[in-house]
């Protein structure tokens, strides 16, 4: 019956992992782990008390009992009233303590996010994330999809919007989740403490592909972040060889350009992920497949079989078009 003990040890061991609330790499998540430990201790103690009382109550040897057999079924022994008072005080004190602890943790979370030095806007769509880095100089705005790069130690303010249904922006290793609600603008604060590669996922049921709507989070040093940001500002790389040129010609004139945008090319679609620096990302289709040539072929040829029901149609490409497109997309570093 030592539920509490096993419970605590199991959690601590399995706290590695890319998407884990016990990662503790973000300020808010570190607060979460500390508060969670405090709650666990108090709850385990309460649980042990109750279990012990129950076990003893059921299996203890007893002589005089106040039961119907001895016609004393209405009486109660003198000790029950003080025991009840002690028990009520114990519960009240425990709960008030926990409430105060949670209140102070909430205040420290709010303090962490109060002076942001980086501002993003994440707009959730049905089953992918549209990420924009805002900057006072409008022409320095970077637009990417399904990935977020954060400089370590810099508090970031993430403005959350949704184009269709309610989603939830959740990167367990950094911070708690916040919903993205159409018609409303909510915000989340991220303050990464340690560098690393993490993964966030949509946590509010948002339709048929809710399960495959993840985003890759990379926390890196300030210098690495600035290099990445500068690279993202460049337009899409022009095709280098004839195969890439054929791919470029297909992507920027046929079905792809109706939805996708590649800066520096006539493809200007605004309703699907921005592909300008597609090859520099870690995964395809909002975390559905890791980024490699095989998955790229599989995805472009028939997206409906990888992520059935999503809004990218199966175009039914001829073999040479497929090779050309994949060659061109792989060059979009």
């Amino acid at each position, binding site marked *: 019956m030592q539920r509490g003990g096993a419970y605590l040890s199991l959690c601590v061991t399995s706290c590695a992992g890319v998407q884990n609330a016990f990662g503790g790499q973000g300020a808010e998540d570190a607060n979460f782990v500390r508060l969670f430990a405090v709650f666990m201790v108090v709850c385990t103690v309460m649980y042990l008390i109750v279990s012990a009382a129950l076990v003893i109550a059921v299996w203890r040897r007893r002589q005089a009992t106040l039961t119907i057999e001895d016609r004393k079924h209405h009486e109660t022994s003198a000790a029950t009233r003080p025991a009840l008072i002690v028990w009520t005080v114990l519960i009240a004190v425990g709960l008030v303590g926990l409430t105060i602890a949670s209140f102070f943790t909430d205040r420290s979370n709010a303090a962490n996010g109060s002076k942001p030095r980086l501002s993003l806007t994440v707009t959730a769509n049905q089953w992918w994330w549209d990420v924009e880095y805002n900057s006072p100089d*409008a022409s320095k705005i970077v637009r990417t999809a399904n990935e977020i790069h954060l400089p370590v130690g810099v508090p970031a303010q993430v403005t959350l919007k949704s184009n269709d249904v309610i989603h939830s922006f959740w990167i367990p290793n950094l911070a708690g989740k916040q919903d993205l609600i159409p018609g409303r603008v909510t915000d989340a604060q991220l303050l990464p403490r340690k560098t690393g590669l993490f993964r966030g996922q949509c946590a509010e049921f948002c339709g048929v592909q809710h399960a495959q709507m993840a985003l890759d989070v990379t926390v890196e040093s300030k210098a690495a972040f600035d290099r990445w940001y500068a690279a993202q500002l460049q337009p899409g790389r022009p095709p280098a060889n004839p195969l890439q040129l054929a791919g470029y010609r297909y992507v920027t004139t046929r079905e792809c350009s109706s939805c996708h945008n590649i800066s520096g090319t*006539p493809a200007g*679609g605004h309703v699907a992920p921005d592909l300008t620096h597609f090859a520099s990302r870690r995964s395809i289709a909002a975390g559905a497949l890791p980024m490699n040539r095989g998955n790229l072929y599989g995805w472009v040829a028939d997206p409906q079989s990888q992520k059935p029901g999503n809004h990218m149609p199966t175009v039914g490409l001829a073999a040479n078009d497929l090779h050309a497109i994949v060659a061109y997309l792989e060059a979009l570093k």
Partner: protein
Amino acid sequence: MPGKDYASTRFSGLRQLTPQNVGDLQVAFTFSTGTTEGFEAPPLVVNKTMYVIAPWPNNVFALDLTKPGAPAKWTYEPKPAAAAKGVACCGPVNRGAFYSDGRLFLNLLDGNTVAVDANSGKELWRTKVADINKGETLTMAPLVADGKVLVGNSGGEMGVRGWLTALDATSGKLAWRAYSTGPDKDALIGSDYRAPYPQDQGNDLGVRSWGPDQWKIGGGTVWGWLSYDPELKLVYYGTGNPGPWNAEQRPGDNKWTAGIFARDVATGHARWFHQSTPHDLFDHDDINESILVDWPAPNGQRIPALIRPSRNGYLYIQDRRNGRILSADPYGYINAYNGVDLKTGRIIPVPEKEPKEGRVVRNICPGPPGAKDWNPSAFSPVTGLVYIPHLNICMDMGIKNANYIPGTPFVGADVKMYPGPGGNRGVFTAWDPVARRKVFEIKEDLPLWSPALATGGGLVFYGTMDGWFKAIDARSGKLLWQFKTGSGIIGQPISYRGPDGRQYIAVPSGVGGWAGAIVSADLDERDPTAALGFVNAMKDLKKRTTKGGTVYVFALPK
């Protein structure tokens, strides 16, 4: 020329018609162009010939005024590409041609500018300046000055990049092209550019005031009116709205859109620019006409100024040498702006009227066509008043994510327009630019989409969208005479001296344009957002007028 003169006063000096005798005006003759689209172009009368410029398919007719009934001498049929109608946002219209030393210059809807010999009707040259596959069309009336034909494109709703192009009048070859967005070398902004206010001064503002690459599809089209000052050799024109209408999708001031350029006509270099509506939220292009007059300043000396009743509802009077604002007063009902700060020249927006994605914002006045759309006002030096035929329309606006596909509309907004306070959709205002106040105002039920004409005899002519052609007293605004034409009037009335010396008044009558689209394109009034929201305000137009395409010419009986 359409504006009667380079200063676009639309004032005819003839004095035969006076408030006393205008009562017995009667029809002298009529001419039907055989088209049913919006008939906006004014007929041009040059040495006893009236040139009638029809809307789609842009036919030109030369009528011999010497013969009774003015039969057509020749007809010029340019046959523009039909696909252009698919990218003409507000009706396949044409706002007029320009006559200059024996040639007629006009724009065709499919992006060609043509020169036609005035007496034979033979096409001299045809230059392709705009590409309909990108959504560009030509609807504006060209202006010929200093041997150059100045042409601007339209397609602000199609994600087009606006420009003003100068073609050589004789050969039609491209002289220079000034873009409304993009780097300074594209916008021909050089060393001699001095902006009246600091926020319009800076290098490559046309790129830095846009999101990355958004200036390439940023609008700023030049589809309105040009004015030319021969002494200063400057051409004044306004740039259209930034694209798309969804302002959240294009952060920044979106430089050189919705503002007034003054350019040197020979080289095209900009002399000054003032942005009347930075980061425009409600499609308030600033293409309206600039009337060039000398304005008596309070300290007595006369400043060469330009008067412009802008679409955002303020009547700007600016010094046309350097663009400084002398006065900016509202001439219509406005609740979307809090005025213009004369020190910084910047308009003061009202925060809660700013549309947000995913939420409708209600009761925004003036609506997208603004307090006055493209139909130009007239200035009468006799009374010193500006006669403004304008609108009283408000709207509900909801913006959404706009997807850019070249050749398709790039708007990103759901709009519903409805009459503003007072319930009347049109207002005819006489404005005293010196005293900066309204002298008189006539409330019209339907929006006023027809330009005004002032005459030396103290009369002002304008037409209503259900076909009434009205003459009012220039001083008191009293209605003196009106005539019911066959279709709604959205064209420019003109006045000319006929071969027999009498004063004739001609007016094109053919409903259409953005306001009349419900009739000219027979739209369905059950969809309030149709035609960018105008159908919601014009549900009754179908019962009050039908399509048409006729020029009516009036004169006093012999």
